[in-house]
Structures are given as C-alpha cells and as structure tokens.
C-alpha cells in the first residue's frame, strides 16, 4: 500500500478478440490518490496457470490496450494497474477469460463440448431360446397336371422365422400314412414342385417348417387332389 497511489482500475473487459491480439478496456479508478493518473499497466495470465506477465513496458494513457504475443487458441485473463507519481495501485479484479481466436473459429466452436462417458453398466442376458417355427398357412395346389403338381404356402407368422425351411409331406387319400417328399433337403422357398406322383391316384399334401431348433407342426392338409388329365386346377392364389 503506497501512500497517495491511485485505487485499482475497474471493470476490465475484452473489447475485441482475434488470434493475434485481444483489445482490453477498463474504467479509471474512482480514487486517483490526490495525484493525476499517469497511465496503466496491463497484465495477462494464461488460464490454467498462475503466471502473470506485464504486457506493456511503459504506462499507457488511454484505458484501452491491444494485448499481443498470445498463443492462438489459448484463453487468457487480464488485470490492470494504475500508476501516478506516488506509485502503483493494486491490480484490478481479473477479467473474464477470453480465447485468442478469430470470431469465425469462435462461432464454429460455439456449442461444442469435449466428450464425457458415463459409468459402463454391464448386464447379463439370457441367450434367446431358439424356437421351433409354427405352422405354414394357406397351403394350396397352384398347378396340377398329370406330370407334375405345384404347391405353395405362406411362412409361419410366429417367431422362430429365422432360417426357416420346409418339409413337404404327401398322403394317399384314404390312408393315414404321411410320407415326407423331400426327405433329404428342406426347401427354402414357400413352394414346391412334385413330379413322381402316380397318375390316377388321389393325394393330400401338408407342409412343416423347420429351423435349427427343430421341425414344427404340419400345416392343414390340402383337399384330396387327383393326379391326371381331368384334374381341376384350383383358382390362382391371391385372387
């Protein structure tokens, strides 16, 4: 505390900021200590450090000073001291932090934030039981001649649809003996052509779905269909 020294300057703020300089302004102290103020010293400090650097070697007269020698992108705070013939004032209150960057870059940075990650929560889950697929629907004989016969159907509506394939079964009318037609390979598409049917005989057909979990229940059987020239060809599906 120097007798007769001025009071501390007030309201230090940044008027304009660029990557090359930041213009700092302030208000003259309320008390000049009895002697007129000769000028001011501006100090800067990089945010995150406690190292204050005096920016001007000789006191500046006007309450405004462009601070240079800044590192682009770094943020700074400022304070100002007043001086008269008796001595130096206490430093002013510190300004708000200001980043040394161009206004366009500042605009680009606005509303940005560094990442933050919350606590990772781990939960144990039961592997989904694979389900045996349900029954195919809408089984129909879509084409029939004495040489071949075509069946079509709809996939099951229930779960367990993944990787569903089909087995086709036939049964000679009047018997209860269902025989799998494609004994080796299940078919992937919901249609099937049969060739080796005995002419003149009457058959019913049904289809089962299968997946990795197993073979499902059969569809409703078709009505008895006779293989031969006089065969009625049913109406096209999806009429």
């Amino acid at each position: 505390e120097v007798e007769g020294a001025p009071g501390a300057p007030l309201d230090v703020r940044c008027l304009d900021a660029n990557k090359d300089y930041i213009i700092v302004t302030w208000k003259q102290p309320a008390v000049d200590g009895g002697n007129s103020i000769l000028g001011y010293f501006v100090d800067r400090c990089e945010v995150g450090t406690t190292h204050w650097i005096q920016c001007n070697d000789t006191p500046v007269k006007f309450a405004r000073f462009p601070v240079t020698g800044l590192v682009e992108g770094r943020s700074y705070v400022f304070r100002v001291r007043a001086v008269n013939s008796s001595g130096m004032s206490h430093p002013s209150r510190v300004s708000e932090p200001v980043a040394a960057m161009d206004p366009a870059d500042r605009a680009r940075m606005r509303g940005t934030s560094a990442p933050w990650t919350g606590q990772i929560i781990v939960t144990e889950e039961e592997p989904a039981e694979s389900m045996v697929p349900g029954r195919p629907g809408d089984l129909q004989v879509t084409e029939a001649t004495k040489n071949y016969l075509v069946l079509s159907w709809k996939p099951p509506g229930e779960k367990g649809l993944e990787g569903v394939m089909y087995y086709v079964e036939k049964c000679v009318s009047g018997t209860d003996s269902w025989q799998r037609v494609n004994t080796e390979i299940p078919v992937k598409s919901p249609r099937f052509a049969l060739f080796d049917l005995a002419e003149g005989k009457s058959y019913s057909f049904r289809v089962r779905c299968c997946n990795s979990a197993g073979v499902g229940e059969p569809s409703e059987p078709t009505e008895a269909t006779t293989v031969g020239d006089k065969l009625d060809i049913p109406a096209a599906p999806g009429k």
Partner: protein
Amino acid sequence: MSSNEPTINSSKVKKFAVVEGKHAKFRCFVTGKPKPEIVWKKDGVPLEPGRRHLIFEDREGYYTLKVLYCKTQDTGLYVCAASNALGNTLSAVHLSVKGTSVR
C-alpha cells in the same frame, strides 16, 4: 491419440461377472459435440463388430457392446473410449466370466 488417452486406475474399476454361455451387455452414455467417435476395447485392443461382438447405439442413445455366448477368455478390462475435436475420455469396467462347472 492413444498416447494422451487418460490412464485407468484398475483398482477403482467396477467389476461385473456373468455366467459362461450367457450374453454380456455393456452400456455407456456418452455426451459431446461434435458427436464423439466411440471405440470399444478389451485389454487395450479395439473390438471389431463380429459374430460374437455386437456394437451399436441403442434406442435410448447408449453406446452398447454386446458379447454373445461369453467364454472364460472374454474375462478382461473393457473400455469405452470417446473422442472428438475437443478431447477424449474413457470409461472402463472389468468383466469376469464364471465357468459353469464351478458351481
């Protein structure tokens, strides 16, 4: 990038356990703008999506890693690392897979 990544204090890492053969789901909420890039790592090695590793952002916005049909070898330190232009951070947990034969 990895050189300035935060270090992990293993003693403070939360521990979770799952039973062998079950799925382990890791969920991590991440904020940041621009939207951070997320890398899941196990014992420092980035995990790629694959048959047993599902990596996705769930409906509630959590970054999620799912390890299917856990094996005892899946035991280890799992990290969710997030980075954007403004920085990077991570969260870590330790998973142990308990063999079913030990019961």
